[in-house]
């Protein structure tokens, strides 16, 4: 089963885990990404806004999930990504994978979050002190995605 969701609503991790556990696999791995408070020189992040490319974003996530399912013979893969405004501590993304054994589940989960960062059209804007800044892409994300 492949489940891809891009939504403005908060992510219910317990519900997502319960769904993927129903695949009947022996191993479920998951990753949850949260909005960092990041109190740097410019102050703490008040709001993080996520923009996406409706249609193309969902298609890119589905392509990644398909690739993971084929490559690691997964019983299931879930990608849930939130869009719109969110606050520090809230969940941005959830990735879940189900496989017969832990190795495949863990590797596929790392693959999905690494490649999501470089292959799926999302853009982050941080608001600090009422002032918004678009987040720059990081070279380390490219390196992480290329190892797969």
């Amino acid at each position, binding site marked *: 089963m492949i489940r891809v969701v891009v939504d403005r609503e908060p992510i219910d991790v317990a519900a997502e885990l319960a769904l993927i556990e129903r695949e009947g696999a022996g191993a479920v791995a998951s990753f949850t990404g949260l909005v960092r408070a990041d109190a740097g020189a410019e102050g703490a992040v008040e709001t993080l806004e996520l923009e*996406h490319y409706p249609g193309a974003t969902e298609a890119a996530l589905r392509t990644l999930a398909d690739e993971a399912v084929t490559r690691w013979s997964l019983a299931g893969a879930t990608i849930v990504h939130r869009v719109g405004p969110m606050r520090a501590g809230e969940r941005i993304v959830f990735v879940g994978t189900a496989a017969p054994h832990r190795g495949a589940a863990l590797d596929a989960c790392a693959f999905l979050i690494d490649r999501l960062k470089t292959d799926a*059209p999302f853009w982050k804007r941080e608001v600090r002190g009422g002032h918004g800044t678009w987040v720059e892409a990081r070279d380390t994300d490219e390196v992480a995605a290329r190892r797969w």
Partner: protein
Amino acid sequence: MAVRMLYFAWVRERVGCGEELVEPPAGVTTVAQLVDWLAMRSDGHAQAFADRGRLRAAVDQAFVPLDTAFGSAGEVAIFPPVTGG
């Protein structure tokens, strides 16, 4: 032929809209040439497209390098490098 342009993130902000319908002239065949041509439309377009190294593109929702010919595509998107996850 009309092409539906889509802009995202700071490209959208600088251009001043997220979407516009354009009719590129015959000599404009690649996404890079399309960007050159669009840059002449307004100061906002020129600003959005000034730094080619920071622009990415999709033709009919498929990610492509800027030197790709867009052919008879109905939709071309221009945006910064992605930052999701």
